[in-house]
């Protein structure tokens, strides 16, 4: 029972071309930056990425999925907005990148349903928009609703502040965001963390992601300043 990997390269060794991967983080907070850099180095292509947004490169500060976008490794992106990533927008407009856009709360709820063994839900969110056109519709409690399907992935790359050796995770502040939900919804969950502590070091009442969801743990090598 050892979940600790010595390097990001070992932790992602079996990620294959064409994989569907969830990436935690929202913009510059809580993103698994070391795993993403290693995925670029590995050369994985044709990725279906599930992430809030594609990240960006602003003033030389690079975050989120941007390194993958820049190298055109992503074929399809499921998320909630473009985060003003000009490279992403360019590829989208050129038809090089498919973008399935969801309102962010529905995006995370679809992931939750994926991780939960549920089979989809009705919501009034977006029911009066162009996004509803291809969705199954139903009026419930007098409201027009659309049917939303679960999201799952082959891998989830997540970032936490601290892990114990069995994989219990804690996040800090806005670093939580999509990470705990994605941790439930992928076949293989790889957590990069800033600190690893012994089993028993964390208070059972203060664990955000129980270790059951986490398959691999790796200590991130570099957390660059974000300001």
């Amino acid at each position: 029972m050892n979940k600790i990997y010595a390097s990001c390269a070992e932790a992602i060794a079996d990620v294959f071309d064409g994989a569907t991967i969830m990436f935690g983080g929202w913009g510059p907070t809580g993103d698994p930056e070391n795993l993403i850099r290693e995925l670029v180095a590995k050369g994985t292509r044709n990725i279906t990425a599930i992430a809030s947004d594609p990240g960006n490169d602003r003033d030389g500060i690079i975050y989120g999925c941007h390194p993958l976008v820049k190298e055109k490794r992503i074929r399809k992106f499921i998320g909630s907005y473009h985060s003003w990533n000009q490279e992403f927008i360019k590829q989208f407009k050129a038809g090089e990148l498919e973008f399935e856009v969801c309102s962010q709360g529905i995006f995370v709820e679809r992931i939750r349903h994926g991780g939960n063994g549920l089979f989809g839900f009705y919501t009034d969110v977006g029911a009066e928009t162009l996004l509803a056109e291809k969705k199954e519709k139903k009026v419930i409690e007098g409201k027009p609703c659309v049917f939303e399907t679960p999201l799952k992935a082959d891998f989830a790359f997540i970032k936490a502040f601290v892990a114990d050796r069995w994989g219990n995770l804690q996040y800090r502040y806005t670093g939580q965001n999509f990470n705990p939900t994605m941790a439930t919804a992928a076949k293989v969950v790889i957590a990069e963390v800033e600190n690893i502590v012994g089993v028993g070091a964390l208070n059972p009442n203060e664990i955000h992601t129980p270790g059951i969801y986490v398959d691999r743990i790796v200590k991130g090598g570099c957390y660059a300043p974000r300001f």
Partner: protein
Amino acid sequence: MRQDSKRPLTENEMCKRVAMEVKDGYCVNLGAGMPFPVANYISRDIWSMVHIEHGVLGVGTVATDAQKDRDLMGLGRRPLSLIPGAACFSSVEAFTMLRGGHIDLSVLGTFEVSEKGDIANWLLPGDCPIIGGAMDITGHAKRLIAMLTHTTKKGKPKVLKECLLPVTARGVVNMIVTDLAVMDVTPAGLVLTETAPGYTPEEIQALTEATFTVSGDLKEIPFA
């Protein structure tokens, strides 16, 4: 009224005006763009909590250099501070608050708004879509304020009979705050309640496609 006092509101002044709508005990969701600085103008005499979809209830303001934390940021790498009593949580929880109707007031920037309270803020034709959490918010906050400049840079009205752009949701806006006017959205249509300094209702109507009635209580936006 002196001619030289006639001017549209700045974005900060619009935020100041919106902040006056925040009442004691309110939980207020602030959209990440134009609305965010509203946080700076909420009265310190009341208890209120600012919510952002990033997973914070109890945002203070932009963090000082000494406070900056890479795990505490809003949109656009904006470093944040917290007030006492703040809670941080997952996106799932952030949207339970929003979609579950637990937010008293939400403020969204928008491209267009209609006299029926429709809002269009996610898609410019031919462009890449940008939703964020907006669709979850519309129709679920107890009260929704739309913030926008009254016209495009080319002077075309953005307060319309019907939105020209694809809508985000229909019949959801309660109040409109622009750089020229404050309007209530009522079942009977738009009601102009306040004007920017020096503007007459007629001048505002000329820049508004939708027809509004003028409140008997019309005044200049108080603090401007």
